[in-house]
């Protein structure tokens, strides 16, 4: 068995509608190794959430999903609901962006966490309750007993997000998918969550797919990062490498737009133009329209996957480094 907890290969997701087909994910490939945190970054609409939903088979019947997704070695695509239920909660858990809406307002939070636990593991209620208390303690919720009987509206966003994390932990999944779990929170709370997640990964050998649009959070939390643009991963690699020496023009452009403390430049740089319309077929490189290093080939041919450094890959015609020939076909035409 591979040490890849999540493996997505050539994922394509289309939302068909009579008005226009939205081709939201185009040949996306990424993986999460056991015990690592992969950051998935990208602008709004780049397909981060769709990718994560696909990983759990949660996209529903309105989406057409093609490619391979393996979670802990099990194929996800085209599986029945019953089979998926085996995986969900037990092998992989998910945390959503907005903790205020991700919990049912009509039930006490403890009950909801306990239900998730009882659903994925067979045990007595008493036992389950104990474990929930423990999980609440682990995520440092003050007064677990009181928190257990609270309704969501009686808790703050940071607390709720911790409840969500506790829910994920208590189920002891191998993979945790977190879709922008800190975006709705304040920086100080965000810092708490980041530290908490780091600690939990270290303690419990958890693997996390962490979705965010904040490169700073990636830097602070993740081991590896995958940068998404227009439905595909354009660059991936260890955080240290990608952020220090971005090989894709999009990654570097993105980094330059972020104002950083202590920066005293007169003008912030920006990325001109707009994200491509996902309902229109893209020929060549999706970023070509906005790229400063664009060349003729970019408009004609989809860029191949190149290994830039040992573990750093980039989909760019102009990225330095050798072309991994075996990947040209896989990354190929749309």
């Amino acid at each position, binding site marked *: 068995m591979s040490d890849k907890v999540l493996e997505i290969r050539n994922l394509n997701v289309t939302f068909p509608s009579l*008005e*226009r087909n939205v081709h939201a994910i185009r040949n996306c490939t990424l993986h999460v190794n056991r015990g690592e945190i992969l950051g998935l970054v990208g602008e709004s609409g780049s397909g981060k959430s769709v990718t994560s939903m696909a990983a759990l088979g949660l996209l529903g019947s*309105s989406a057409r999903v093609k490619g391979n997704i393996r979670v802990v070695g099990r194929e996800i695509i085209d599986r029945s609901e019953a089979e998926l239920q085996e995986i969900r909660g037990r092998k992989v858990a998910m945390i959503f962006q907005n903790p205020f809406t991700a919990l049912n307002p009509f039930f006490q939070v403890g009950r909801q966490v306990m239900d998730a636990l009882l659903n994925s593991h067979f045990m007595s209620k008493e036992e389950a309750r104990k474990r929930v208390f423990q999980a609440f303690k682990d995520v440092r919720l003050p007064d677990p007993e009181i928190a257990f009987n609270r309704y969501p509206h009686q808790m703050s966003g940071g607390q709720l997000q911790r409840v969500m994390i506790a829910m994920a932990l208590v189920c002891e999944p191998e993979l945790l998918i977190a879709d922008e779990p800190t975006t709705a929170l304040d920086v100080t709370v965000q810092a708490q969550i980041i530290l908490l997640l780091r600690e939990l990964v270290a303690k419990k050998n958890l693997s996390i797919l962490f979705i965010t649009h904040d490169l700073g959070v990636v830097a602070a939390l993740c081991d590896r990062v995958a940068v998404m643009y227009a439905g595909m991963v354009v660059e991936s690699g260890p955080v240290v490498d990608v952020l220090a020496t971005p090989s894709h023009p999009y990654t570097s452009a993105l980094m330059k737009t972020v104002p950083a403390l202590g920066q005293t430049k007169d003008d912030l740089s920006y990325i*001109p133009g*707009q994200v491509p*319309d996902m309902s229109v077929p893209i020929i060549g490189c999706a970023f070509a329209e906005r790229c400063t290093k664009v060349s003729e080939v970019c408009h004609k041919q989809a860029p191949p996957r190149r290994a830039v450094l040992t573990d750093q890959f980039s989909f760019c015609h102009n990225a330095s480094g050798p072309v991994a020939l075996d990947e040209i076909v896989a990354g190929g035409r749309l």
Partner: protein
Amino acid sequence: MSSLDGFQANPALQPSWTRRISHFASTNTLLFVGGGIFLLIILAALFAPWIVPFEPNKIDFSHKLLAPSLEHLMGTDALGRDIFSRVVYGAQTSLIIGITVLAISMAIGVPIGLAAGYFGGKVDMLLMRISDIFLAFPPLLLPIAITAALGAGLFNAMLALAISWFPWYARIVRGSVMAIRKELYIDAARAMGVGSLRIMFRHALPNSWTPAIVQGSMDFGYTILAAASLSFIGIGAKPPTIEWGLMVALSRSKFLDYWWTAAFPGLAIFVTVLAVNLLGDGIRDMLDPKYRSGR
């Protein structure tokens, strides 16, 4: 300003109207069936004199209670009147009822809702309590009480229905105005020194029309049904007005033996209301994406 080059909205993101409509036609066949039938009904109402084979009020006892035939498509009633002709004319009445009741109840309800939602506080409290009073009567009972006081008759019935129905519009408009009031563009307009009245009518009203119209299109059918019920129990339309509910009422003593006397006017109500409801549903789907089927 060089930094702004290429900052254009992509027109492809906005599908054209024709595409939208054709998309709609194919996803929402029922809407188009409803719309089609409704159009036919409107045409029937408008061109009734040219369509009908017989004078609708012409009494001819030698032809009474004839079963449907080629000559009398829907048969004749106890007075030998051609039911088909009467059903066609009945469309006029029903449409007038629907339009009048909705117009009156919106004319009362919309301004009330607008003022309540916009000003909030005590104004809201007062106006809404007043509306609540009218909602406290079980539906149909207030119209009954009002017509009992004002006297039976189609106009009074319509007025009574409108009075009992306006609070719904007040509520809906208020609700959406309250929601809109929280929208930043209202604050923005105020910040730019735009006056209250202008904000109410230029900003709040156009944005709260949608739910009112959606509600209206859903209520059109209810109105026709309610008016027919009032006619049926004898406090709505009176002859020589031709109204479907009244036709059923007049045939009540006969329908077990002469089913067509009640069935066709009843069917006319059903088809019309169904068409209107389908249309209303479609309009709602179109204007209010929340209810679109499927995700």
